[in-house]
Every structure is written in C-alpha cells, then in structure tokens.
C-alpha cells in the first residue's frame, strides 16, 4: 500500500517536472562584448565577457537579469538591456515580450498591500483582485485597524468597475459588502465578551497608476456603513495608499 503510494507520488512528480520544465532560447551577441556577472545584480562581479557572434542559451530570469549558459558551459547573468540587443535564431533582433503597459490591460490577478487610515486610526490592508474583463473585477480584502481603544478587522468582498481601463492613471468605482469584527483593548474591559461582529456595506472610489513591468500604485477612498444593533448606524471612512503586483 505504502509502496504503491510512494510510486504514485513519484510518478506524478516526474510528470509534473516534465510539464513545468521551462523553455530556453538561444541568442546571438551583436554588441562588441557583453559582460557576464556572477549574480543577478550590477554589484556582483563580472567574471566573463561574451564577444560578438557568440551564442548563449537563456535559462531563467530574476527581476531584470537573465541567467545564460555560455559556450564554455559556464553559467552567468546578463542584464535585460544587453539581452534586448541580441539576435534570435531567425537573425532578427530578440523580441523581449516583456510585461509592459499592454500587459496591464490583460492582467488576470492583482495582489496589493495598503497602508492607510480608518477613521483616524492606522490601518493595514491586504487584497487580492481577480480581473474578469478590462472593466470588471472582484476583490477580497482584509484590513486590520489598530486604535487606542479598539481593534477593527474588516473582511470585504467588492466589485470594481474601471471607468477607463486603457488609461495609465485609471479611475475605478467599487461597491462591497463584508463583516467588521470590533474588539476593545484588553485594558478597557476585563472580560473578553465585548467583541462585536457587524455587517458592513461599502462604496469606494480609487485610482490605479501603472508604474512599470507589472507594478501598480493604488490610492483609494472608501465609505463604510456598519450595520449595528444600536439606534443609529455607524459610518466610517478609509483612505488607502498601496502597492500592487499583477500577473
């Protein structure tokens, strides 16, 4: 039983390894020379120089650096700028189909972190966004707002509508619903039974700004209506400034 299980796992791992095996590409150097670094940053030393006409195989990428296999079978890293000046096997300039502004319109997922103010209290938010069409996206977010008297945790799901998805500075409207968990500070109450759960509705306005590659800056303002058991409803506002990565 155990052996067959292990065999099954090994087989599926082999299949997975075959499936995920990434492609490599051969490129020809056209500059007089290209410096090869020992690691993926400008600060790592140059240990080799590839000359014009030599072929290298591109193995993988880290940020804007590419790991290459040299003709002498050694491996090193060359920069994005140098790779962009090479030729592919067809004799044409290597096309680096990199994430650019067109990728912004075609993104599927966005991950964001925000620092902000929730009713004059510092708040941190993490959010994941699924982009269905250029205009419509849904987002799930978790906020923790830590005040002097109480702590609010907010879990929200919202629908966003990007008004002009083709703009670099792109505004959006959002409408959401979720829950707020409010717990008072431990030094204010001795018993912990004061924690409240409330439903909340939210309306928001935001801006996305495309930075470069797959990075965005986001600024948003949200108005929350917290449905309480008390006579009057509670209204809160939230400002957020954040950084997002899209894929």
């Amino acid at each position, binding site marked *: 039983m155990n052996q067959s299980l292990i065999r099954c796992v090994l087989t599926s791992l082999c299949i997975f390894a075959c499936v995920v095996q*990434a492609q490599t590409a051969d490129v020809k150097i056209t500059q007089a020379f290209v410096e090869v670094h020992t*690691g993926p940053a400008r600060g790592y030393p140059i240990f080799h120089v590839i000359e014009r006409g030599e072929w290298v195989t591109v193995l993988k*990428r880290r940020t804007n650096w590419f790991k290459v296999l040299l003709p002498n079978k050694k491996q090193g890293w060359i920069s994005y700028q140098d790779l962009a000046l090479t030729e592919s096997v067809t004799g044409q300039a290597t096309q680096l189909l990199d994430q650019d502004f067109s990728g912004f319109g075609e993104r599927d997922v966005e991950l964001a972190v925000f620092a902000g103010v929730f009713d004059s209290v510092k708040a941190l938010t993490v959010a994941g966004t699924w982009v269905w069409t250029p205009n419509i996206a849904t987002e799930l977010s978790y906020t923790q707002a830590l005040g002097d008297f109480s702590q609010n945790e907010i879990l929200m799901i919202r629908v966003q509508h990007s008004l002009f998805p083709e703009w670099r500075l792109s505004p959006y409207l959002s409408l959401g619903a979720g829950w707020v968990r409010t717990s008072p500070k431990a030094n204010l109450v001795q018993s912990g039974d004061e924690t409240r759960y409330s439903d909340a509705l939210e309306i928001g306005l935001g801006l996305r700004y495309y930075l470069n590659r797959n990075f965005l800056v986001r600024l948003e303002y949200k108005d929350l209506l917290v449905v309480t058991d008390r006579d009057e409803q509670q209204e809160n506002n939230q400002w957020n400034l954040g950084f997002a990565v899209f894929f």
Partner: protein
Amino acid sequence: MEPWFRSIFLSVIFIVPGAYAQQAAEDQTANPMVVEPVVKRRDINEADIDTEDFELGLFVGNISIEDFSSSSLVGARLTYHISQSFFTEASYAQAQAGQTSFEILSGGAPFLTEDERDYRYYDLSLGYRFSGETFVTQNWVFNSDFYLQAGAGSTDFGGDDRFTMTLGAGYRLLLTDWLIFRLDAKNHLFDSELIGPEKNTHNLAYSFGVSAFF
C-alpha cells in the same frame, strides 16, 4: 433518410466541391504559384522563460521583549524581488515572553496570563539591497548582499494587537543560485501600557535563516 433531406444533402455534396474547384481555377489564373514563406519566430517570451522573483524562508533567533526578558523566536517570510535593488517582504513570527524583573524579584502576582505572554507579529516591509561578494577564504567566494528594511505590521502581545513599525538591517549569502543564508537584525517599535503609563517600546530581534527562490 427522408427523400427531401437526401436530395438536399446530395446537392450540397455535389455543388460545394464544384464551387471550390471553380474558385481555385480563378485564383490560379490571377496569382500563379506564389509560395508564402512560413517563418516561425522564436522570440523570448517572458511567459516561456522561468522567472524566479519569489523567495520563501524560515528563520530562528532571539527577541528582546522590552520589560519581559528575551525569548527565542521562530518565523517564516515571503520575499518578492521587484528589481535588483528593491524587494518587499512579508514575515510572521512568534515567541513566548518571559517575566518582568518585578515579577521575578517580588514573587508576586504575574502581570500577564500564559496566553497573554504569546508574542506574535506580522509585518510588511520594503527593502533595499547593496550587492557585492564575500571572500570566506581567498578561493572560497560567495555573492552576498547587505540590506536595509522598513515596514509596518501588527504585534499580538498582552492580549492586544498593537500597530508596529519595523526597522531592520541584514546580510545574505547566496550559497547557490537559489539557496540563501540570512542574518537579520530588526527592531519592532510599538506603544505599550502593560506596566504603567503608555510608552514606546523597542523590541530588538536578531535571527538567522535559510530561504529558497522559486
């Protein structure tokens, strides 16, 4: 098959190839023997080349919790490399706070319950790296980085979550292309009123860890 259906079916069979043959004949007279070259371009597509910008790691160390002795610390972190210099990082760790000197000396009632002594934090930070290399011996050389980090997060201690600012500096040694050894020193600043009036506390942690790129 119904007779009417059969006749439609047969007429389609006969008419369509005839129409195609006629069109092909017209094309040939207008455009004799043009062979379009089919060039398959082998471009480097970001989707095809394996991209490794994430780093996942574990660390152990020691944290000095202000007024509550120092304790061992265990945690995990996820790093995303934005560029060759900038990176963002999320980390989570936990420790068990000790006793204040007052509790130890007086032998009196403890300030906190056992549960309240659980010290847990998370933080999100932005870092900047200075890359270089380290000569362990004359011929044994590793790539290495020195980095600075600043961030914000939350610390759950003494029954409350506290907004926490973090400031840190560290050193990492690239053992291989994907395996990294790290040494970190990080200060966690938050306001606490656990032993009297509210004050700003500094909780300095140092740790070492390993992480891997994927």
